[in-house]
């Protein structure tokens, strides 16, 4: 029952070929097997959104996927969207607008926002709030998060 399953997937552009146990979640695979600890583990039952990553370009809860299911897919995590020197415009906007305090929810927020802005280049505040409603933040009260997403959408990021 504990047999290993061979998987091959792309994570942030790099090919990864390895084996995993059936019950290895995608988020544990990313954090423990690949050392990509930017994706956070919050509730582990699909409520908080902290573990949001992009799977073949679509936002997903990585705590609700088994790593074996990601075989053949392309995964993008927070580590894959920008660098320390060249932040992604949404990362830059979050920094500029004080859209994070403790930062725990931020990777999930940003990946959810990337998907939103790809689908809808000019969202209203209401559309931003609905799109991010599955990502919980215990610090900010969300106002500055909405502001940051709006700024990134408008290209107003220094």
């Amino acid at each position, binding site marked *: 029952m504990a047999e290993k*399953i061979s998987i091959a997937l792309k994570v942030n552009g790099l090919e990864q070929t390895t084996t995993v146990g059936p*019950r290895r979640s995608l988020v544990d695979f990313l954090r423990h097997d690949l050392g990509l600890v930017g994706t956070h583990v919050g509730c*582990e039952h*699909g409520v908080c959104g902290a573990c*949001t990553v992009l799977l073949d370009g679509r*936002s997903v*809860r990585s*705590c609700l*996927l088994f790593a074996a299911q990601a075989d053949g897919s392309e995964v993008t995590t927070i580590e894959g969207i920008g660098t320390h020197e060249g932040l992604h415009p949404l990362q830059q906007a979050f920094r500029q607008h004080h859209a994070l305090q403790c930062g725990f929810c931020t990777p999930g927020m940003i990946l959810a926002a990337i998907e939103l802005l790809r689908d809808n280049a000019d969202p209203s505040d209401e559309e931003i709030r*609905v799109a991010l409603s599955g990502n919980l933040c215990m610090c900010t009260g969300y106002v500055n998060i909405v502001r940051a997403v709006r700024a990134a959408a408008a290209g107003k990021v220094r």
Partner: protein
Amino acid sequence: MGVVCFTMKPAPFALFQPKTIDEVLALLHSYGDEAKILAGGQSLVPLMNFRLAQPRNLIDLNRVEGLEQINFHDHTLSVGAMVRQRDIERSASIAERLPILREAIEQVGHPAIRNRGTVGGSLVHADPSAELPLLAVALDATFHLRSERASRSVAAKDFYQGYLLTDIAPDELLVSIDFHLPPANCGWCCTEMARRHGDFAIVAVAVLFGCGRDGRIDFARIAVGGVGPAPLRITAAEDALLGELLEIELFRRAADIGAQSVEPPADIHASSSYRRHLTGVLVRRALATAESRMKGYV
């Protein structure tokens, strides 16, 4: 979920990743209730992480071919069991020909949930406040089930039997569902009350109605979720609409009948009387919205 649990990892299981429906049916035949079907995993995997569900064998449908079609026929919309909720939301043909389905889907969870969550998974999970089972009941949907023994079709009203309980047998697979298309000119609305967008509805309603050439209502559907173990149609309220002319007082009367017809449960989210009150308010609002969306009616 109110469960004391120090490990948030599922119990051990064997994972099967078949590629054809026949392989799935063979696995279901072999393992029966020792196996669980994994579709989008947005309800099952949380239950597994809490160890409220401990399937020994998990049959993953995500690589199975032939479960992802969206096809319109003369009187039905046929949807494969593994169609993602997000694909319904983004389908231009559904937005045009069955917009109430899109409106319902937009209230399911959040984008990341809908990206994975499937039509079939939600229908079979049968949460009493879920939007897709509500629509299945409102639109007289037909469920197409297959097993190694036989293929059969079940009407939505017979499919839902109780709290999280359906007519599906342990060796059966939901392959597709047919939603019956309402009359082309009808008004429609699916609305709900939830604490936060995407949360489970406290009460959800779906209404559709259409008028004949004499302006009198000749088609009416009023379905409610979250007020019992399974979604239900309120035929007494539908009957109150049939044969009548559209007017706001009529909507109020039908809503009152709707509120009086339900026997809602009480839980941590809402009392029984509040759910009854919400049923009346939401039915009345939904009827008014549906009227505003009727085609060819001024």
